[in-house]
């Protein structure tokens, strides 16, 4: 197994595509963070929101959208006459294509770490340099970038770990392009041969887990070296005035954002509006039949809507509810139990989804003790895996909320005679509720479109939306797949807007585009 050519090629491909994608993520994320945090560009919140769109959209749908944009049938490329000739392979069905789409998708991670690093940069440091006569460029070169080195590398490590664990992009672009990666190799083996090859794929999963562990160790090491410097409550940086360069810069940024975030989505919508693959979109050919099919078609799709909705709601409610006591233990008590819980909550999230899915199969394939039932092949196993995968998303905002909460709120209640349960219910819960709601929303958004663990754990009757979109695409019914994808993206973006409305009541940084 270790020496098999397929394994070695998948490993080499994984490293290659992930490295290139990491470079793309870091370049995009750092550039965007510097521009939005340090300059006086207008409409920065909108810019960041559009920049983060690819991250809000599940990877398999991004990959589908990009494939529609770059393929021979692309209405947008055709209109400007640079579409690949009909009959040729989509140029994105390659290592470069995978790296590009993953790079855009994970640019958010680099952006967020660099942005957090900039937030910790004391304003005095920059003002001192300005008083000393340094030009803005000199300040970026000699002060900002050196301070940002650690967060930049940490962001890179995170983007790398996400890239090697990514399944949706290589599944959509790599499988047809015969560019195999570790995640897709595991999926194809397990899908083709069933649980009897579990041992073999578990070995593959271990390689993946080791790579992820290396990246996360690097990140943890780097995070320690800069988190100590963060000064809470320091005044925000004074933006540099771009002067005459402001309008051209704004145009350049919006053009780039249009290409990276908007055009793929437009192509996806276009692909959903034609009756069949290859038909050119025009007023005569436009049809809504794909949407009708996606919403009112086969029972399996409707089941998938219901299943995904139920799974995502349950995951959101359970995670948001459990996050409060756990976050309280972590922040206010800092007990050893809480540290262990913290590790447990973080590990599954950091572990690549496919590895997690295999772990869940290994644990739950055999009948549970006492009740003698196996969760394998039920919704139960999906829920368990979802919970493990998204728990940290709900925990982080609540922890951030409690960390910034005045400790004396609880102490005042304690002096007033309130016991722990009363304090949690009447003082901490109302104050942390917006953060818990935000966490629940993020869980829902992620779980509603989940593909990676669903792809290995679903069974007939227990389909999820992610799996159905993936299958429709593979059956060649791309218009229907695109239509279903558009619907799920609309749901996700609708939730993102709700999330945005919550921003005022949340700790700074929980809503990423308002960081």
């Amino acid at each position, binding site marked *: 197994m270790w020496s098999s050519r397929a394994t070695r090629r998948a490993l080499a491909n994984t490293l290659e595509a992930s490295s290139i994608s990491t470079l793309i993520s870091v370049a995009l994320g750092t550039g965007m963070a510097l521009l939005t945090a340090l300059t006086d560009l207008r409409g920065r919140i909108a810019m960041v929101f559009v920049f983060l769109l690819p991250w809000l959209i599940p990877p398999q749908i991004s990959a589908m959208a990009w494939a529609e944009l770059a393929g021979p049938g692309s209405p947008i490329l055709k209109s400007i006459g640079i579409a690949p000739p009909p009959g040729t392979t989509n140029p994105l069905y390659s290592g470069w294509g995978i790296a590009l789409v993953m790079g855009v998708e994970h640019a958010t991670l680099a952006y967020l770490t660099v942005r957090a690093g900039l937030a910790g940069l004391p304003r005095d440091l920059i003002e001192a340099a300005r008083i000393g006569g340094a030009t803005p460029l000199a300040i970026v070169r000699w002060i900002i970038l050196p301070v940002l080195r650690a967060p930049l590398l940490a962001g890179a490590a995170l983007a790398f770990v996400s890239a090697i664990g990514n399944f949706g992009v290589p599944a959509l672009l790599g499988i047809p392009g015969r560019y195999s990666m570790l995640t897709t190799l595991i999926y194809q083996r397990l899908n083709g041969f069933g649980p009897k090859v579990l041992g073999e794929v578990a070995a593959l999963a271990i390689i993946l887990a080791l790579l992820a562990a290396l990246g996360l160790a690097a990140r943890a090491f780097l995070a320690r070296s800069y988190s100590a410097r963060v000064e809470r409550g320091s005044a925000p940086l004074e933006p540099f005035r771009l002067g005459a360069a402001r309008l051209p810069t704004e145009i350049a940024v919006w053009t780039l954002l249009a290409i990276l975030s908007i055009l793929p989505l437009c192509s996806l919508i276009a692909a959903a509006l034609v009756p069949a693959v290859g038909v050119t979109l025009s007023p005569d050919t436009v049809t809504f039949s794909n949407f009708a099919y996606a919403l009112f078609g086969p029972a399996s799709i409707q089941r998938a809507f219901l299943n995904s909705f139920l799974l995502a709601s349950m995951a959101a409610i359970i995670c948001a509810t459990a996050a409060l006591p756990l976050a309280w233990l972590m922040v206010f008590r800092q007990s050893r139990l809480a540290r262990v819980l913290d590790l447990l909550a973080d590990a599954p999230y950091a572990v690549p989804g496919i590895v997690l899915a295999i772990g869940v199969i290994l644990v739950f394939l055999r009948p549970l003790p006492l009740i003698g039932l196996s969760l394998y092949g039920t919704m139960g196993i999906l829920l368990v895996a979802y919970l493990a995968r998204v728990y940290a998303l709900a925990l982080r905002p609540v922890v951030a909320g409690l960390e910034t909460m005045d400790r*004396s709120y609880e102490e005042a209640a*304690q002096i007033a005679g309130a016991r722990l349960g009363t304090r949690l219910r*009447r003082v901490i819960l109302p104050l942390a509720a917006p953060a818990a709601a935000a966490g629940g929303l993020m869980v829902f958004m992620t779980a509603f479109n989940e593909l990676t663990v669903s792809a290995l754990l679903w069974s007939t009757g227990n389909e999820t939306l992610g799996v159905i979109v993936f299958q429709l695409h593979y059956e060649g019914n791309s218009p229907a797949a695109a239509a279903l994808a558009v619907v799920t993206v609309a749901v996700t973006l609708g939730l993102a807007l709700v999330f945005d409305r919550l921003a005022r009541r949340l700790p700074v940084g929980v809503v990423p585009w308002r960081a």
Partner: protein
Amino acid sequence: MARLTLRGVTRRFGTAPAAVDNVSLEVAEREFLALLGPSGCGKTTLLRLIAGFEAPDSGEITIAGETMAGPGFSLPPEDRHLGMVFQSYALWPHMTVEENVAFALSIRRVPKADAATRVAEALERVGLAERAKSRPAQLSGGQRQRVALARCLAMRPRIVLLDEPLANLDAHLRETMLTEFRRFHRELGTTFIYVTHDQAEAMALADRVAVMNAGRIEQVAAPETLWRESASPMVARFIGAGTLVPVDILGPADEGHVMANLWGLRTRLRGHGHHAEQRTAVLRPKDVALAATDGDAVACRVIDSVYQGGAWRLILRPDVPNAPLLTLDTDRPPGGDQLRLAINDGWVLPEAAA
């Protein structure tokens, strides 16, 4: 309204020197005690030990004879029936002013009608009856302070603990609140324990002041005693900008006074001592004055003069080797940079203090 006793209370954090080191203290019923000291002296930790947020590593705390904390035991804060006003006020932002004040009463299951009366009464007392339905965020700093106090009063606690309650208010409001605190204490007859680093606050409010330094209590005394008869060099320096000078005792003078040699001058000082002892005396700005004659006076150079609204404060260097700087408050602006200073009073620190 209860007697508070601390016996040998010690609290350490990790391996650092004890934050509170073997502190013993008695606070009488209805007393207003201030815990005063520089930052990091342990005064806040001591308050939190009394409140129950910290458990002592050793020692014992009792209130009205009831043990609050002892060896291996610490009653949680919720069972101590105390009130506390926090530096940040800690008004719960999701509750109205009224709900904040009523919280403790609902926890303690005070009947609704009774609770409503007590809440109204407490808000009336702090002059905020008409803001009962407001949220804390809609109030000014001074108003929040009053709500915090009302919340504390409505609980009818045995002891009111105040943790630097005026630190976040501007100077003008602080004056007003000082008067209010004194009034509340007079009207309620409850024991107040008040932590502050501001000696003017402590002196203005307290019946007795406990001066803390490095986890220990240096002196507990009435404000006037602290000022006139400091027990240690730390207290002497911390209170009223005292200057320490070495003196040789010549012998006892009339009751409570000694004659001493101070920079070659025969000086009458308050305190006790025996012939030929080398001791330390504390001189405060009020103890020195411009000399009328050249006789018993020390020549000084004026280093600096600061106008302080109504009076000048002069910083002086006596023409004596190794002499510390002295301060003098005078009505007249300084004329020239040399003057002669008479030493009219001073306090010889007690023996144990070197």
